[in-house]
């Protein structure tokens, strides 16, 4: 993105153009871009995996419920829902991708206790 004061730069871009992070599906589409998928392909892939339309991907009203139902982390603070690594482990399974920190957690859990 680039440098600038938080409200003039980051928030302006977030409101003008961004997918909305974990408020919607921005984190999920971003993970597919890390796998070199361009935007339309990444959005279609995530929409298919979630069983929603591409337009729904950035609809915070729709995605708030979908994310809670899938238990993949939500933007507001809700006790009992998956947090952090728990949510990412579920996202890796949902999107059928490898997430580095999830793989590391599996290694740590599976390692013998000397």
């Amino acid at each position, binding site marked *: 993105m*680039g440098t600038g004061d938080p409200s003039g730069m980051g928030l302006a871009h*977030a409101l003008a153009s*961004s997918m909305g992070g974990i408020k919607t599906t921005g984190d999920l589409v*971003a993970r597919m871009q890390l796998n070199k998928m361009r*935007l339309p392909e990444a959005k279609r892939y995530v929409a298919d995996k979630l069983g929603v339309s591409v337009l729904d991907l950035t609809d915070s009203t729709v995605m708030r419920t979908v994310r809670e139902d899938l238990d993949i982390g939500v933007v507001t603070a809700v006790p009992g829902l998956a947090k952090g690594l728990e949510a*990412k482990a579920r996202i890796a399974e949902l999107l059928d991708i490898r997430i580095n920190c999830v793989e590391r957690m599996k290694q740590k859990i599976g390692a013998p206790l000397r």
Partner: protein
Amino acid sequence: MSTIITRMGDAATVEMTADDLRRDIVEGSEAAAAKGKVPVLEDREVEYLVDMFTCPSRIWGVERGHEAILTKDGSTNTICSSRLSSGVCAPLNREAAVRLFETAFAFDTMEVGHTDYSVKPAKFLASLEAQHLEFLQHVTILPLFYGFMPNLGLYYRPDGPYPNPSDLLPMGKIAEARAAQEEALEACREDVVWLSKQMVDVAADGINYDTVASTGDADFLATLRACEEVTSTTGLPVEIGMAAEMVLGFHGELEYDGVRLAGLWPHQQLKLVEKAGAAIFGPVVNTNTRKSCAWNVARAVTFVKAVTAEATIPIHPNVGMGVGGVPTCEVVPADMVSRASAAMVEIGRADGL
């Protein structure tokens, strides 16, 4: 004739007629086309920009369904650092700031990075940096990069051990200046690879090499070679974001994959970045403070459209202060940032910003 209140490239308010704005948009696109030898904007794209800049609305945005991904270079410096990074020096540590970006600001991705942000000082704090990243990976959901600048300039005297080409070139010592750059770029490449691998070990989702080629073609070559090694040996996604629109030829003869690096424009840089194995490319188009924002946005999206037309990887053009049509000033106005932002996605066809 009524006038429209808009801004110049230094963010100063200016009143222009609709005809003046249209002329600036056409001329901005033509300026990019002439420099980069890329196509000018189509008529319907010019009309979009005219509508956008003549609209009195304070904020502009993309059409619903056209939203793109944000990647954030400079880490949390905008929150935690000083005016050097347009920072507000909020009383928060980096972990708290990253979590704010994830929840309060709803960013799509975020990044951890050292406040200085250059690889040379950051490598001495690698274990601390890795610890920050490792901790955050436990508590966040969004993809987390580790970001830094190769910043080859720090490897030259007085900051580093190598003779400074800026001292040698004015003395006509061209061969010595080139030799110094060749030695320095190898040291820089080694540091970039080493620090990247430290972050692989603590499960970064990706590495962001930012402000690439700030020290010219040798800086770009060091980064491309590092990217090639990191992506081929670790599989870690790498984002390469540039420092300026054209690669300056401080060396002049350096090549990557048989292509001379000096003088490359964004769509030409893209091809090498793809060959190096990067997952995301961030082209830069410089802002001209003496021209209107309409002229600058038109010029920027013309360059970026030429990049996205040929790309096989996601393109996240830089739209920070002083680039991508955004004015050059310490505190940027959201009216112009939101317009540059939307234009990059709607006309430039950017996959992200």
